[in-house]
């Protein structure tokens, strides 16, 4: 399912050819495509796992394999993956949290018979690589992310942040479990798998995506947190439970995207800024510090395929509704500056577009960008837009404006509790759905409350999805809620 001519992509955009959807709807296929692991390394790692004795490692892993999720995961394979990855990175070894990650990868690849163990391992390994510093000794990146999460909250969700911290619920108390399991210890497996798509597709954005997801969950938990905060007694534990409940209640990735108070791009900029600040110890960040973003771009462009998605993601921003709450905060950020740089760079890559469709997101980015970017400078506003167009090339200007519509359908999806189905697999492909049924414009404006999305019955796409649905259904029958 490699390249599709731009023309076809445009068709998808406009609501055409549903059969295309099936092509891109297999998560397995997409994951495999994004894996960066060299097949020789994979073979070597898997081979080592079976051939050498590592009593201590095996002992620890054996304990955890038994208690990774409550659904059936191939224990022998899980063990093999964990041992292989631990041996491949001796300095890191095996760290709890990785068991959940491998478990989900195996579940996805096992959906209809595990046909390609090496591909599954490569995906797992690529995911870990995206989060090197989450598991490295001392968890340096994890600690940084927790810290940046705190700053972002303080800045963009002041009230919520104050409530959380007033009862002692600092990011360090609730974030590690989300981050170290890459979401899998709390979200439904389908939601987790969906979150990992952009992570796999976009080198360098793993932390930004996870922190962004965490912020969205906190926003979703806000009503519960407020209620808990009214109770002077058990506030702390109730708040912790509220956050977990909010995460467990997430039915689709859209719920997260709708709830996120800031864009992934903004989070990424904040993380980069933190890095820059650290490396230049003490030097205050100035407008001229655009180096970090450039560096990131460099790495992005070395993965042409992923560039587009990277852009989309970095442009991914919250719905206008959500925004309302935050307007106050938005004005300031210095954090946006770096962003600017990023986009500039992005422009060049267009050539790849021709290859494939992944790009359906852009529309959203377009929309969102418009909304958010109020944050600051004109640059921001324009840039995001620019990005969009680049990606989509084909779509006429109007497209840029319609995107909002796309959301509604999704929100509808959420209502269906199972939902994961729809989105997980399709989202990337989202475009498709959009096309089929022109969602009512009004929806666009309500988004704020993720919980109460417009009740849109299942997408009309059924036809196409039948196959997918079957797979999904099988998953759904065995609920993947882990707690």
């Amino acid at each position, binding site marked *: 399912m490699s390249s599709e001519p731009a023309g076809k992509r445009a068709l998808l955009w406009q609501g055409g050819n549903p059969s295309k959807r099936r092509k891109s709807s297999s998560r397995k296929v997409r994951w495999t495509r994004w894996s960066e692991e060299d097949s020789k390394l994979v073979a070597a790692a898997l081979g080592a796992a079976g051939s050498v004795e590592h009593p201590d490692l095996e002992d620890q892993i054996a304990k955890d394999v038994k208690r990774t999720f409550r659904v059936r995961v191939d224990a022998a394979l899980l063990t093999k993956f964990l041992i292989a990855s631990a041996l491949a990175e001796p300095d890191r070894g095996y*760290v709890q949290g990785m068991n959940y990650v491998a478990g989900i990868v195996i579940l996805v690849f096992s959906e209809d018979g595990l046909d390609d163990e090496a591909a599954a391992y490569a995906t797992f390994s690529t995911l870990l690589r995206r989060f090197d510093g989450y598991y490295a000794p*001392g*968890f340096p990146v994890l600690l940084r992310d927790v810290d940046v999460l705190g700053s972002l909250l303080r800045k963009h969700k002041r009230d919520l942040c104050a409530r959380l911290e007033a*009862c002692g619920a600092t990011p360090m108390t609730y974030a590690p479990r989300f981050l170290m399991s890459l979401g899998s210890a709390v979200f439904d497996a389908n939601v987790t798998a969906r979150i990992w798509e952009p992570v796999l597709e976009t080198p360098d954005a793993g932390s930004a995506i996870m922190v962004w997801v965490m912020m969205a969950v906190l926003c979703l938990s806000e009503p519960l947190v407020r209620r808990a905060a009214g109770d002077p007694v058990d506030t702390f534990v109730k708040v912790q439970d509220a956050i977990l409940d909010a995460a467990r209640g997430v039915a689709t990735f859209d719920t997260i995207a709708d709830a996120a108070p800031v864009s992934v791009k903004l989070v990424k900029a904040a993380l980069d800024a933190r890095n820059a600040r650290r490396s230049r110890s003490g030097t205050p960040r100035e407008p001229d510090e655009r180096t970090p973003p450039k560096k990131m771009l460099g790495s992005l462009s070395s993965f042409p395929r992923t560039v587009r998605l990277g852009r989309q993601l970095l442009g991914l921003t919250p719905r206008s509704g959500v925004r309302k709450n935050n307007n106050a905060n938005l004005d300031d950020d210095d954090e946006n500056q770096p962003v600017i740089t990023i986009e500039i760079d992005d422009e060049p890559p267009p050539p790849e577009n021709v290859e494939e469709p992944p790009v359906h997101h852009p529309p959203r980015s377009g929309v969102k960008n418009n909304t958010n970017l109020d944050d600051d400078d004109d640059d921001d506003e324009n840039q995001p837009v620019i990005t969009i167009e680049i990606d989509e090339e084909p779509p006429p200007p109007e497209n840029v404006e319609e995107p909002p519509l796309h959301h509604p359908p999704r929100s509808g999806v959420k209502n269906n509790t199972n939902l994961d189905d729809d989105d997980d697999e399709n989202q990337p492909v989202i475009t498709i759905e959009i096309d089929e049924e022109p969602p009512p414009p009004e929806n666009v404006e309500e988004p704020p409350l993720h919980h109460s999305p417009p009740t849109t019955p299942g997408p009309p796409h059924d036809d196409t999805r039948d196959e997918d649905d079957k797979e999904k259904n099988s998953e759904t029958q065995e609920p993947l809620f882990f707690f």
Partner: protein
Amino acid sequence: MTSSSRPFDLQIKLLMIGDSAVGKTSLLLRYANDTFSSTFITTIGIDFKIKTIDLDGKRVKLQIWDTAGQEQFRTITRSYFRGAQGIVLVYDITDRGTFNSVRSWMAQINDHADAQVNRVLIGNKADFETARQVSTEEGQRLADEYGVKFFETSAKNDVNVTECFTTIAREAKARIPTDPNNNRQGQRLNSGRASGSKPGCCK
């Protein structure tokens, strides 16, 4: 938990530590929820539970922090030590390695916990006698060496679970004045909880 709305006299923060898979979470779930399942899940980061008990005529609310046991997690687990008034250190009587780690955990407590923190040593999985690798005497001896109470427990069969938590709570309580003026001190463990817990910024 409607019982939580009853007034309480004191709030105590307890921390559970010990090697991976010794049964910390199982003990806590047995104690707080009176449940046991052999399919517990690895704790990543930290988990929390509340249990309110009547202790010698006082209503005491225990806030129990359940940590991840894997050694690599110690960098983050350490950050949870501060403010704990009682620490429940658990090992697995069927796994000598976890018993051998007790000294290292005690050193962690020394380094990172509040100086006067109360401690209790627990040998869990006492129901699994046939797999025992650490004798009761050894456990007791080590506990004596550190001057702490010792229990062998079974989360599975609910043996000694309540006793160990009650013991550590009683010790901590004895150390913490319960008059209203000092009550807040207990709460403060949660780090800065304001008395009304209503930061003025609500909309």
